[in-house]
């Protein structure tokens, strides 16, 4: 299972960038405020992770 879930370097770089410039700033803004767009992005981030996991597990 762990070998199957191993991601390639290009994907890891993209996810790292998404976390640094996407997830963390969104959380910061969400903590300071309360807005609809922040929730949209967190849902989108969840879908991205889900699709990557599904691909690695061979579901899609």
């Amino acid at each position: 299972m762990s070998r199957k879930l191993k991601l390639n370097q290009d994907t890891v770089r993209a996810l790292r960038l998404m976390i640094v410039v996407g997830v963390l700033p969104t959380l910061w803004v969400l903590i300071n405020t309360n807005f609809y767009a922040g929730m949209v992005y967190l849902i989108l981030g969840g879908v991205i992770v889900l699709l990557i996991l599904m691909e690695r597990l061979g579901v899609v």
Partner: protein
Amino acid sequence: MGFVGIDRNYKQDAFIGLTAGIGFVVLNKVSAQFVLGLPAIALSVGQLSQFVVTAMAAPAFEETFFRGVLPGTLQSLFHNKTWWLFNIAQATLFALFHYAAYGVGFQTAFVGAFLFGLVAGLITKYTNSILPSILMHSVFNSYLWLMSNVSFGGI
């Protein structure tokens, strides 16, 4: 199938992305039709928060999803290798996302966002990286944010 990430040609990809972003700014100057809907954030949250979401978070999430993982998933689901069909599909979904999530007008979504999605998909395919499209999106959104938030004293 495969997801597109960020490859090792950072500098070349960054240059392509920044240049394409400036290209869209010029296109916006030529015709005001070429805009992207900005995230629906209340003015009360402050300009810094708006900028963080508009210029950083939105490009990172949207490009990773629409250019990074969506084409690969569609290709896998439909067992079809015709790339341009997936590019049109992801650009259409990108335009629909801007229409539904940001509440922009239909014309804004299906002229500006659709064209932007097609170009971003094309650049992603030829560079094999989502970095150029993230930067392109970021440059264009920063410009639109600047235009809607900052007064230039008559300029």
